[in-house]
């Protein structure tokens, strides 16, 4: 079993679908945080075969759970206080995602208008389909430029 140091206060995201931890890292903008962040990729998992884990030593309230749910609704969120697990949270697909992703439709007004909020709504919860609030274009995962 792989051992990564415990965190004292913060949040542990477990059961992340293997390969999605960096997406969550990107959309939560963890690169901008000054705290400890541990990224564990392809950890062995009995249930999933492989999984990713993220440990973030920060105030749990500062993390946008909707962003995590949007990327992977099956993630388990563990809240850690004083080195102990105090709460396990289940998350579900958010009805709306604000200023996380941008619309890729070149005909969408958000491609030219400055200062607009980028909003997507959950159009189909069975198939995890989000659509742009402005133009109804379906969101498809894009390559992230690191």
């Amino acid at each position, binding site marked *: 079993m792989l051992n990564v140091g415990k965190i004292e206060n913060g949040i542990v995201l477990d059961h992340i679908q293997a390969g999605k931890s960096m997406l969550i890292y990107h959309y939560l903008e963890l690169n901008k945080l000054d705290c400890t962040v541990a990224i564990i990729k392809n950890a062995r998992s009995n249930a999933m075969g492989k999984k990713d884990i993220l440990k973030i030593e920060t105030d749990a309230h500062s993390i946008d759970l909707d962003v995590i749910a949007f990327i992977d609704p099956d993630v388990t969120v563990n809240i850690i206080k004083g080195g102990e697990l105090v709460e396990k949270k289940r998350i579900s697909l958010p009805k709306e995602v604000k200023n996380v992703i941008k619309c890729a439709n070149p005909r969408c007004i958000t491609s030219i208008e400055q200062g607009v909020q980028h909003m997507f709504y959950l159009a189909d919860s069975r198939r995890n389909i989000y659509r742009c609030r*402005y133009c109804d274009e379906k969101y498809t995962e894009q390559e992230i430029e690191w």
Partner: protein
Amino acid sequence: MRHILTPLDFSVSELDQIFDTAADIEANPKKYANACRGKKLATLFYEPSTRTRLSTETAMLNMGGSTMGFSDANSSSVSKGESIADTIRTVSCFADIAAIRHPKEGAAMVAKQASRIPIINCGDGGHQHPTQTLTDLLTIRSLKKRLNNMTIGLCGDLKFGRTVHSLIAAMSRYQGIRFIFISPNELRIPDYVTDMLDEKGIPYQENVRLDDVIGRLDILYMTRVQRERFFNEEDYVRLKDFYVLTKKTMRRAKNDMFVLHPLPRVNEISVEVDNDPRAAYFRQVQYGVYVRMALILTLLGIKVNDDGEVIEEGPGKLPL
């Protein structure tokens, strides 16, 4: 404050009230001649559209109000790079209600977010065109005396045709509606529309040939293949005359089927069809004025009594 960005912004019963008002306007136009006296409509047209702009302005003028605006982005502050949000904040200081048309999808939503006055979406790119849809619904209701239990065929550019998307969304709220989509493969109905129909369990089918299905239709909604929606001129030239409705094709249609078209028509309906009593597209234009009058009254919260006196008015602009 109410706006109209899509036909779904109003419930079926609210739309019924708008259509009842429109029918009353048709029967008693004089009663409404001063309903909007002192009110100003701004028409913000970032792309040209003679019909929709004139129809909306006529609606306001018929009720004693006045109009202002621009009909081309080059003749406005937009050419200096002003955002939609700033334009609508400014116009909110001048007018009581604004009608906006813009080539980008979702433009009216941006306007709504910044506006202190009701917004009428008069077309946002290939996305929505609710006042055309209300026109279509009123026309169907007036001609068929109902809005439920019918088969509606939509023919032509179903991919970029915003009138088509709006009409489907609106008609899918009535009982017993079936759709037949007739288009070349390149201009098929987008998946967000069929997803919505699947979700609601509304039956539809897709066909390439109009002749094969016209006999089953109660309404045939023809559309123009629009040059401005194509990035590639070659595709446009190949597809523009894919459908031409002729007298011969009309022989296969039911006697009580009506042909609608949002206009302008190019070649997709032969002029020989114009004299057919089932050709309803010019009547549709007249209904467009009535329904826009009813919509302006609704958004401004204005009601008149039988003597034409304004007996109720909405709260007006939102504070600065």
